[in-house]
């Protein structure tokens, strides 16, 4: 067996391939890709006909739709009722009511109908809320530069709560302002 040290030497002392330097020079000469793509992420979902998104950090859990118990004297359209999420009774609110989006009323889940409807559990500042969504895509990664300003033509209700527009699958997805949403919801709970 040869002395490993000798082998190492030989390896390091090898002549470079002819085009090696050129290859690296070209690579280094290329303009640097300034930032990594996909540094931010959001959960993309649909309410009624509207595609929307919330920052992933706010969304804690996705579950199947569950029975909601309405609350007497709190049936103002925004508060849907109480729903059991992992043994916790969480307030369920209607995003469509606040945004003014047309949505089918939230019925009890019908049996034997495969549905794309889900319940999103959100937590912001230690406060928990759930809201039902018509369809859920999942987590979408994007770069902050991809975000576009909210066009002034967007219907008033949605525009107020939209922080930016996120292009996704040829659709304009409204990235919601979670802080403002939680503010509005907590004002309508009592």
């Amino acid at each position, binding site marked *: 067996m040869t002395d490993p040290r000798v082998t190492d030497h030989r390896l390091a002392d090898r002549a470079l391939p002819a085009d090696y330097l050129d290859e690296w020079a070209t690579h280094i000469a290329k303009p640097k890709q300034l930032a990594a793509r996909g540094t931010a992420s959001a959960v993309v979902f649909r309410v009624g006909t509207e595609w929307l998104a919330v920052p992933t950090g706010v969304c804690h859990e996705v579950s199947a739709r569950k029975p909601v118990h309405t609350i007497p*004297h*709190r049936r103002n359209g925004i*508060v849907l009722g109480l*729903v*059991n999420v992992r*043994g916790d009774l969480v307030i369920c609110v209607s995003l469509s009511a606040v945004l003014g989006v047309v949505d089918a009323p939230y019925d009890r889940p019908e049996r034997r109908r495969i549905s794309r409807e889900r319940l999103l559990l959100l937590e912001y500042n230690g406060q928990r809320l759930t809201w039902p969504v018509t369809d859920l895509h999942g987590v979408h990664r994007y770069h902050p530069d991809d975000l576009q300003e909210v066009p002034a033509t967007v219907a008033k209700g949605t525009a107020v709560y939209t922080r930016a527009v996120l292009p996704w699958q040829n659709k304009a997805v409204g990235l919601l302002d979670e802080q*403002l949403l939680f503010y509005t919801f907590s004002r309508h*709970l009592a």
Partner: protein
Amino acid sequence: MSGVDPSELSMAELFRIEAEGQTAVLIDGLLALERQPSDAAQLEACMRAAHSLKGAARIVDVPAAVTAAHAMEDCFVAAQRGAVTLHRGSIDVLLQGVDLLLRSAKAPDAGLGAEVDAFVARLAAVLAGEPIAGDDAPAGVLAVEVAGGVTEQAAAPVPASPATPAPAATDRTLRVTADNLDRLLALAGESLVEARWLAPFAASLARLKQLHHELNRGLDRLRESTHGSATDAVTLATVAEAQQTVQRCRQALAERLTELDAFDRRFSNLSGRLYDRALACRQRPFADGVAGFPRVVRDLGRSLGRDVQCEIIGEQTQVDRDLLERLEAPLNHLVRNAVDHGIEPPDERVRAGKPPAAMVRLEALHSAGMLLIIVSDDGRGIDVERVRRLLVERWLADAESAARMSEDEVLQFLFLPGFSTKETVSEVSGRGVGLDVVHTIVKQVRGTIRVVTTVGQGTRFQLQLPLTLSVVRALLVEIGGEPYAFPLAFVARTVRVPREQIELLEGRQHFALDGRHVGLVTAHQILGGGDPKPHGEELPVVVLNDGQASYGLVVDRLLGERSLVIRPLDPRLGKVKDISAAAVMADGSPVLIVDVDDLMRSIDQAVSAGRPSAVIEEVAAGSGERKHILVVDDSFTARELERKLLESRGYLVTVAVDGMDGWNAVRTGRFHLIVTDIDMPRMDGIELVTLIKKDPRLQTLPVMIVSYKDREEDRRRGFEAGADYCLSKGSFHDEALLGAVRDLIGEAPV
């Protein structure tokens, strides 16, 4: 502040509430600064608190507080600049200032001028770097110098009574947040629900087994039909093979089913135990709630010239932590009662042949699924015959029926409001209030109370209580297609009332129950909800009784009796009318627990308002064309003052507590004018104005800046940011504000 309508309060009350809040901030900040003198965030918070208090004090015109707050603000500003460092001596002085502020808020006319001047002088001396007595005093001295409230706390350590040896330190206790514990309980409950899913699932597999059986029989018939006919060997072999496969399937399925069954049993057992343990975490030893009583008894006995000892039995008895908390006041009352009413003076005891030292016993034990707490004394006892005479004297019973009453019945009158047997009213007890309060609280926690007494030997109060407050036996019903639960303690009975037995009396529906007329109301009218199910010929009725009135509540369906683990409603919902709490049913769906006291009131209202009609919460209709103003100010006093002022002129006013709150409100509401302060936490007024004026949808909205500081710089910054008007609060006059508002948006339409 919660639950109090600020518009009901006077200016002085507003200031007091604000002072309580801001002094709490100051104390927290000062204690933090004592350890970290240059903590910029704390200095900022203290400066802001002092500043707000100064402004508020100026509005309500309490010069002493203005001076004190002003001196403190200057001190914090100097510390921010690095001109002074806050060492322990100056923290001492500043804490005294905090007490002065609090006192001036509680009694604005107390004339604290001299004290405030002394404080300002001391503070100036400290800031000038002069040594102050106590500058290097140990921290312990602080507590003594600070206001009465603090010294009291410091002076009341719970003494270990000689009669109660410290419990052996075998059970180590850990501090766990209540929130964590509740989540744990919720998860354990959920695993119990999940476990219940397995049994029906296993049962559904039995159907599969049946199908296998049928398949096998089919193959049997196939083989028989081919028997004798000229079928080729290959078909026969295939059928035989298929039969064998079916056989193997059946066997495998049977084995899996047995395993599943065993797993179901193990899992149900495990989650049941897990749940029981989690529930047990809510329990605390009895001693935790009553450790202070030996001291109370001793001191009270002393003040009355009696030698009384207190003995606690069953210190380790586990009691629900909420129950223990709720019982503190009633137990305290019973113990005081025992010392004051029960125990005789020493000479009287000696004459009666008893030891001069008396004994009050507190005892806790579990008995037959209930918790018993007994408060007993070895005093003179209650003279039942005297109580009987008092009943007649006070027209509570006529002589004949009083004579017929059993001892127990007579003693129950002690719990009546205003009934006292003591001739003289003393500081300690004997005002006739108390025992009825004890009774009410015990009833609230779903317990009962009894008295047993022997003249000359002593009195025993026996409280029989549920083991836990977190579980309630309840009647489940369906109302508007959704489940609701009524605590059994309030349900007199359930009946099915045939339609033809319902009578109409004075336009109200009644039915006869045990010879009495019971008013009938449909639950759906009170609680609302989805469409009620149509009833058949008999109406399911829950008869509710709160001790005074009875009502029959028509529900959709009676579902049965269950034990429910009570979950409080999310506090963000506030008090929900007619509902006390929520729970999760066996299938995991939510159920609401009815607040029967509240519901009875709602029914009363609905009935007395004439014909009970559907009570529908109406969403406030668009409030016409009233001009809507948003007031943004972090000072409670200033905020409420502005609100009252503007509302008195017919404007609609919404308030926000800081810039961030204001920015949220501006974006989600429709306002005609924004009135904002400048210095606020989270987002200041300048930033708020800048954001509003940058937003294409909001930029036309007029904004007025109101500032405490009459500084040219503030005005300039305000106008630069786009404010339409700047008003300084230094010259705060009602007319100035109203005039400016009128100029910007005009009068409010009357």
